[in-house]
């Protein structure tokens, strides 16, 4: 006798619609115009980076296309081949706009890639620590504490000084710097979730442990991890730019935004500001947009259970 069945349709407002948690998240996210704008900017930046080989006016690393006579041209001037340097050219004659597009590719690849790897490693370790407890938990957390007590830039510098330059080495250094934050976040979320009644219910049902952790606990720990993830991407991009600026990051053949900024730095005070300025703006906008997206996600994903 389903007395409860009758008003189930009346219970929820309007026609019975299938509102998944994701749909709810999207509609709440879009409540802030700034967040929507930031998201659009992020999508634009990622698209530009992905499509760079097709939409950039020039391939800045094809030496055949460069002419040193084109060097240090102001924004708006035409090159000897007839391409317009919309953002000027650097000392080698490379189009700044193309350079920025390609630079974004490297910056984003390194930033997102290292954050993703660090997320997987850190989250796994954090969940294991929370679930296992005891000495395992203590051990992993001391490692995290050790990691986080050093300034990120210092650790990265030490690793790179040891390993040498190169994209892969930079990514490795960034992963080593970033995993600890993910581990700590995942562990605190898991500690809260592990005590919740639905986890007790799952244990009562004699489900295997791996199922408890990955099927039941992990999806509920995701919100803070996603938020930290976006912020860590921004941080990784910024860190990589710093390393490249200092000359310890990516090689000159695959310059990221940081390296572009470094290259142009010497020309700042001689009037040829565009060589360093526009890559700087690109970096700033990228990081800010990602951070704003992360901010709004954090606000939306805040546990507001009774809505």
């Amino acid at each position, binding site marked *: 006798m389903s*007395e409860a069945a009758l008003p189930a349709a*009346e219970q929820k407002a309007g026609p019975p619609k299938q509102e998944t948690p994701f749909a709810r998240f999207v509609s709440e996210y879009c409540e802030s115009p700034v967040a929507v704008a930031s998201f659009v900017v992020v999508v634009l930046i990622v698209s530009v980076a992905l499509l760079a080989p097709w939409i950039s006016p020039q391939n800045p690393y094809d030496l055949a296309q460069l002419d040193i006579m084109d060097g240090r041209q102001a924004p708006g001037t035409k090159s000897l081949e007839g391409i317009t340097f919309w953002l000027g050219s650097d000392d080698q004659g490379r189009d700044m706009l193309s350079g920025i597009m390609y630079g974004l590719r490297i910056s984003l690849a390194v930033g997102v890639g290292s954050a993703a790897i660090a997320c997987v490693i850190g989250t796994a370790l954090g969940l294991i620590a929370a679930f296992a407890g005891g000495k395992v938990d203590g051990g992993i957390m001391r490692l995290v504490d050790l990691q986080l007590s050093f300034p990120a830039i210092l650790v990265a510098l030490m690793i790179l000084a040891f390993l040498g330059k190169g994209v892969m080495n930079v990514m490795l250094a960034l992963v080593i710097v970033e995993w600890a934050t993910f581990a700590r976040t995942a562990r605190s979320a898991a500690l809260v979730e592990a005590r919740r009644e639905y986890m007790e219910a799952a244990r009562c049902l004699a489900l295997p442990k791996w199922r408890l952790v990955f099927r039941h606990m992990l999806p509920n720990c995701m919100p803070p991890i996603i938020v930290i993830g976006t912020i860590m991407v921004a941080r990784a991009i910024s860190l990589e730019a710093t390393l490249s600026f200092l000359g310890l990051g990516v090689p000159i053949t695959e310059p990221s935004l940081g390296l572009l900024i470094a290259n142009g730095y010497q020309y700042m005070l001689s009037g040829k500001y565009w060589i360093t300025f526009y890559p700087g703006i690109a970096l700033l906008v990228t990081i800010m947009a990602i951070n704003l997206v992360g901010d709004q996600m954090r606000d939306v994903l805040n546990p507001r259970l009774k809505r």
Partner: protein
Amino acid sequence: MSELTLDVQGLSTHFFTRAGVVKAVDGISFSVSRGRVLGLVGESGSGKSVTGFSLIGLVDAPGRITAGKILFQGRDLTKLDERALRDLRGNRIAMIFQDPMITLNPVLRIDTQMIETVQAHDNVSREEARTRSRDALGMVGIPSPDERLTSYPHQFSGGMRQRVAIAIALLHRPDLIIADEPTTALDVTIQAQILAEVQKLTREVGTALIWITHDLSVIAGLADDIAVMYAGRIVETGQVEEVLDRPLHPYTHGLIGSVPSRNARGTRLRQIPGMTPSLLNLGEGCAFRTRCARASAACERDPQDTHPMAGRTLRCFHPQLEVTT
């Protein structure tokens, strides 16, 4: 005859949400006299808490009072500005919440908070305020109030915290106290203690008390008058003995009947079928008609308040006039 401390006429509080207009409180009227206890009874979604907040002016956006008058000692509270309301709040009208930590600041000592409350409305010295605070704590039955004044909220147990919250409410000897489920989260023995204190106080101080709860048993023991709420409307009012012995509205009838002690042991409890309707699309007519065994075509129209007997109001086309066993 005691004068009316509070006279609510046709109060409506609506919430304007993205999903639609939620008529949390829809045209209710009731009154409380000096020194008497009114029990405002309802289940979740009935609008009883929103009523309490509306009286004291604490309804947050997207909600607001859309209609009606709240006459407190003759003054209409809905017409007052925020400043005037602030003068009254904590001073002549006080509120006690279900969670005492809504009232208490966890990082301040009790004496700091109480002295601040005293000095907010009375221009007295710190020592004077402290003495009043200590007396208030004694009034609610907290042992060694001088020592406990210097404690922090987390050093008290749940029941003690609620007493402190009640003491704060009493600091200015208000004329009206609105209590929103203050003992729901407390154990039976602690609840009994608090009910004993509250009874004593209303007798001694003469405060009018509105006790909001879902627990009919508490109201049976504590209140003089009762108002039953359902889906934002008051369906029945009257004196407690009258309403509980001879409920007229089918909802009240069903509510009393579903209490386990009213059913023979081991038998199926008499239950009200179905569930409270969503406040977003109540539609026209009596809100209870989808669950009412006595509903008819007449119930498609909104029932208005009637007075079937002296001292009773009722919103129903088909009251149960038989006596319940």
